[in-house]
């Protein structure tokens, strides 16, 4: 009987369990996490803060998931070290747990900038269910009326929006010259920036917080340009980085994230890694790097699980992508959205009044990136064209037409897509 051990209990871990149990009903599965909860949807913590969902609907699978899948859980305890030779992990309380197959799915940790005042009461990062609880309690206890969010990326903006819904006056401070600068182009950024202003957020770009002030707790921040903003709370959201603590001092190869082959196995046999902690091939460009998004974590965990259970399955790479709704404006971005260079061609549709924006980035005959704002319908068709590297030159003129669809694709390819029983990605 195979003994599977999974470190981390989030989406990659759950996906691995689901794959393992498809093929191995008997093997022993142990899931260990330092978070004391059943797997929950990390992205939903901002929804919960805003009061859009109740706290118990944050859980990712049914209450009896672990029972049904015969998974032993060790929750609320950190794994402190890993012995790759003798194949065991050590828990914080000293217990040693042996494994035949190990999955490291320890996710990411928020980057903590080196700002004076960073340890003051009232300064938070916002990536965990406990952060939600702490932030909520703090807001309630101190009746926070003003907050500063450092970082204008996805997590920062979703958090800023949630705080605004709680009637807190939020200032977003972003170092780049615009928000969402990594995934959006200028036009897309400015649509969202305007909407955030409309709901009452202040958006400050090209600036950063150089000091957090306060005696017992936060009372203000000082910006790089010397400006002072009074606030009762600061949220640091400048990004996440792979959580590789566990494999430090082991012989597992790591770049920024843990390096894996296309079976999600590390350089050490029987030790796998998946999710935000790992690095995989970016289909655009072909380099390996961490792409810390939910769908990747699921697929990687699932592929790892199959291989751990002895069923060969490959992970074929991914692209950067996200779908976020901010201020009731749905947005999708994927791949290279704002590249520089003559080899790229841009096709755009922009309606300022309706806040509709669509942008397709081509490199030669293939699409390498896209942005959709407000009208996101059928966006997945474009993603498929990107990852399948489909030659779009024969239907390029139709690509942003209102009626663009599978019907616009070359007949053979369309038939291949729709007449089969479904798709094997």
């Amino acid at each position, binding site marked *: 009987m195979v003994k599977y051990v999974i470190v981390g209990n989030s989406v990659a871990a759950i996906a691995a369990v689901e794959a393992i149990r498809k093929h191995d009903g008997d093997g022993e599965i142990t899931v260990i996490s330092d978070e004391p909860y059943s797997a929950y949807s990390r992205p939903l913590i901002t929804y919960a803060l805003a009061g859009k969902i109740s706290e118990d609907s944050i859980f990712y699978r049914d209450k009896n998931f672990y029972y049904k899948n015969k998974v032993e859980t060790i929750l609320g305890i950190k794994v402190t070290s890993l012995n790759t030779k003798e194949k065991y992990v050590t828990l914080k309380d000293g217990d040693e747990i042996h494994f035949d197959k190990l999955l490291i799915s320890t996710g990411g940790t928020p980057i903590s900038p080196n700002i004076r005042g960073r340890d003051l009461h009232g300064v938070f990062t916002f990536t965990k269910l406990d952060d939600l609880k702490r932030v909520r309690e703090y807001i309630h206890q101190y009746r926070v009326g003003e907050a500063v969010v450092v970082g204008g990326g996805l997590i920062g903006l979703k958090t800023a929006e949630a705080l605004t819904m709680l009637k807190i006056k939020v200032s977003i401070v972003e170092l780049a010259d615009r928000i969402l600068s990594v995934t959006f182009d200028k036009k897309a950024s400015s649509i969202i920036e305007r909407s955030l202003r409309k709901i009452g957020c202040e958006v400050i770009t090209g600036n950063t917080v150089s000091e957090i002030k306060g005696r017992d707790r936060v009372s203000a921040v000082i910006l790089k340009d010397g400006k002072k903003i009074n606030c009762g709370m600061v949220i640091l959201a400048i990004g996440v980085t792979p959580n590789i603590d566990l494999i430090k001092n082991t012989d597992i190869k790591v770049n920024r994230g843990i390096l894996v082959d296309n079976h999600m196995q590390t350089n050490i046999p029987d030790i796998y890694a998946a999710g935000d902690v790992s690095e995989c091939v970016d289909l655009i460009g072909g380099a390996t790097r961490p792409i810390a998004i939910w*769908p990747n974590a699921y697929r990687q965990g699932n592929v790892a699980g199959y291989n751990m259970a002895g069923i060969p399955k490959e992970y074929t790479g991914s692209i950067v992508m996200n779908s976020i709704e901010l201020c009731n404006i749905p947005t999708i971005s994927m791949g290279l959205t704002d590249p520089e260079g003559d080899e790229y061609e841009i096709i755009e549709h922009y309606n300022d009044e309706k806040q509709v924006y669509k942008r397709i980035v081509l490199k030669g005959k293939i699409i390498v990136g896209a942005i959709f704002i407000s009208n996101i319908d*059928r966006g997945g068709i474009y993603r498929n064209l990107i990852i399948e590297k489909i030659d779009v030159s024969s239907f390029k003129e139709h690509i942003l037409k209102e009626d663009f669809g599978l019907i616009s694709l070359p007949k053979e390819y369309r038939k291949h897509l*729709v007449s089969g029983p479904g*798709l094997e990605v």
Partner: protein
Amino acid sequence: MKRIYIKEDMCIGCRLCEVYCLVQHSKSKKIIKAYKGEYPKPIPRILVEEKGYLSFALQCRHCEDPPCVEACITGAMYRDPDTGAVLCNDIKCVGCWMCIMVCPFGVIMRRKEGGEVASKCDLCYGEGTPVCVANCPNEALEFR
């Protein structure tokens, strides 16, 4: 599992499938009421694509490895263990549209249901033959 097969050579673009699908997914299941008296207005879970003489009706393919289930951040999207259909639990869905981003067929739509939720073919859950198939005058859709 049983799936809907599309035969584009047989489709005449009459859009009866859309009508039946909309009614089937309305509250009243009555055609006049569904079209004229329900709020929020029901929408079909199938869509007909048409260009010149070519047309076909398209709905969720209930993929072997559904990308929408993988991408769903809430766990709302799931495969029904009994029928194999890919379904969305409206109560859990928060309308983040990750599913729309990854569906290669573009067959997941947005629907008002309190908030907005992902809307897709459910193979007419519990009906036997889906209504789009049963009511196609030309057998351009097959369920097998």
